[in-house]
């Protein structure tokens, strides 16, 4: 597909454990994403997928294990317990399962927030509004608007995010994440609540992000058609453990996976 190097790792997670009190949400989870890859993380409800995202992005600090993040052209870095905003600054962005836009801000302002870590105006800049600050502000607005345009959201520019339809909100959330200039994008159930047409557009969009923007993608999704269609590698987790890894063809026939999804008694799916 795209010509970029595809063998170097961008995310390397080793033996990740996460305990909540006495409950082990993740146990010895290994996962890796290579540059330019689209990887899916699937598993039944409550398997620990979102917890995994929270650990990787710094929202929760993992109990043990290592998370290495290797932005292309930069040094390999252990990011366990790093603050979420620093993880984002390093180049990893995410969306949330239950959409977490800023409802009282417009679509454009939401995307502009994504530019925060790529701009630098401080208090004096804001008060005196010098040439540099105005220029930066203008570039934030234009960059954000271009993103909205690319995502087909230009007509919602000045609408409050909280009042927009579900599918649109999902796309704004992705646009906001992309605005942080990530090299790795984590999408938590991007197609949830979308209809067929919207899902199709979403697949296109994710492909474009990978091919045009060279963003590697790790996604959680329950829509198997989308997962099989889009991802190059799939990790399956159940009760916080990794039970399978492989390309879509292998996963589809893996007896362990079928059992995890359909229960013990079913022999054939």
């Amino acid at each position, binding site marked *: 597909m795209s010509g970029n190097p595809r063998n170097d790792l961008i995310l390397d997670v080793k033996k990740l454990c996460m305990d909540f009190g006495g409950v082990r949400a993740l146990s010895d989870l290994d996962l890796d994403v290579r540059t330019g890859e689209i990887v899916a993380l699937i598993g039944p409800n409550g398997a620990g997928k979102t917890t995994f995202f929270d650990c990787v*992005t710094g*929202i929760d600090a993992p109990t043990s294990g290592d998370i290495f993040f290797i932005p292309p052209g930069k040094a390999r870095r252990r990011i366990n317990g790093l*603050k*979420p*905003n620093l993880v*984002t*600054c390093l180049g990893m*962005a*995410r969306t*949330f399962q239950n959409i*977490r*836009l*800023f*409802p*009282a*801000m*417009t679509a*454009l*302002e939401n995307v*502009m*927030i*994504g530019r*925060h*870590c*790529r*701009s630098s*105006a*401080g*208090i004096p*800049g*804001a*008060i005196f*509004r010098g040439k540099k*600050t105005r220029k*930066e*502000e203008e570039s*934030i*607005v*234009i960059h954000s*608007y271009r993103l909205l345009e690319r995502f087909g959201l*230009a007509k919602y*520019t*000045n609408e*409050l995010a909280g009042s927009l339809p579900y599918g649109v909100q999902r796309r704004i959330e992705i646009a*906001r*994440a992309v605005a*942080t200039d990530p090299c790795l994008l984590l999408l938590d159930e991007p197609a949830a609540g979308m209809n067929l047409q919207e899902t199709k557009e979403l697949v296109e969009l994710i492909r474009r992000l990978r091919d045009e923007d060279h963003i590697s993608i790790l996604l959680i999704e329950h829509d198997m058609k989308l997962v099989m269609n889009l991802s190059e590698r799939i990790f399956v987790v159940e009760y916080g453990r990794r039970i399978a890894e492989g390309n879509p063809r292998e996963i589809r026939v893996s007896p362990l996976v079928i059992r995890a999804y359909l229960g013990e008694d079913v022999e054939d799916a």
Partner: protein
Amino acid sequence: MIPLTLMEQAKKPLMTAAIKKAFLTALCFMLLTFPLLVIRVNTTENIIEWRWKSLLYMGMGSFFLSLLWRYLMERREAGGAVTGKQRPSHGPGMEKVLHDPRFTRPALLFVACFALVFPFLFSTYEVNIMISALTYVVLGLGLNIVVGLAGLLDLGYVAFYAVGAYGYALLNYHFGLGFWTVLPIGAVLGATFGILLGFPVLRLRGDYLAIVTLGFGEIVRLILENWNELSFGPSGIANIPRPGFFGMVMDLRSVTIYLYFIVIAMCLFTMLVVSRLRDSRIGRAWIALREDEVACQAMGIDKTKTKLRAFALGATWAGMGGVIFAARTTFINPASFTFMESAMILAIVVMGGMGSIWGVVLAAFILILLPEYLRAFSEYRMLLFGATMVVAMVFRPQGLISKVHRTYEFKGLEKQR
């Protein structure tokens, strides 16, 4: 299309129902106030007086008030029901008028002219009240950063006000520093205390934050009250000099007018700075923090830095307000910095509309000037004041002037493509 007669028929039972309910309300009120309003024991003659007339007034008054209330509420609900498509004239319609330059320009010009001639037309007493109201505008705008923009409920804001006032009083007492030297020092002191308060409460939000800040406000007040060596205790500090003007000796009237213009300038400065902050990268980060803390961090915003900035920049204005307060009253003691002050400033922010600058200005004038001009009603003063606040919050819960969102136009950009 519903025939007119049908609609009238539908309306009629509504009317009778409303009357019935109002009647019941009146009955309840009459019953409840009966012992208080009707029976009066005359202790000198040992007889009981029955004042039936006051019961009648009470009943009629509450009946009509209840009817009016119901009518207004119904209109409000009818207005809310069509929000989706077109709202009745007030609502965004009024907001649009408020943002229409054809309306705002002459209005602003009028306000500016009035502000300019005000101190020369009115008595020193009234100019003093106006200075007080304008000080509250500054305080309200400062708290607006913390509460309205960053969404951090701060109930101890008056502490920073006290820090500014005592800063001026003590620096003047010990080192003889003047108003103009201390004004920036007061700002820095305020900001420093803002950060001092900010650090321990970084992890808290909502109710917990409110309680801790409330405690902080009380701690500062109690320290001022009890640490006699530092603050001279409850007796306070007197003879604080008024602001000087190149060493000129001025009488009380002219120094009041002078202070009035200082406060006007201060207000304009605050409004400019706060509006610029709000529309900046930092202001957006505050709003994002208010809307969703987790998402805000995940988008690369440093929560710690953003919160501390809000606390520091909010407290800066309180520090400066305190310096002005000390200079105006020439006497301060801890009794001026009770929780009531914090509550008042918070009421200004909430009533004005969270995050709205003009709203805060308007609310500060209403809430500070109203009790002053209601003095004519003597004991009913605070009752009317309370009623005004209740009515304002019921009919405009979003504040007097809710913020209209900034819109961006990209006409030129689209053509380029």
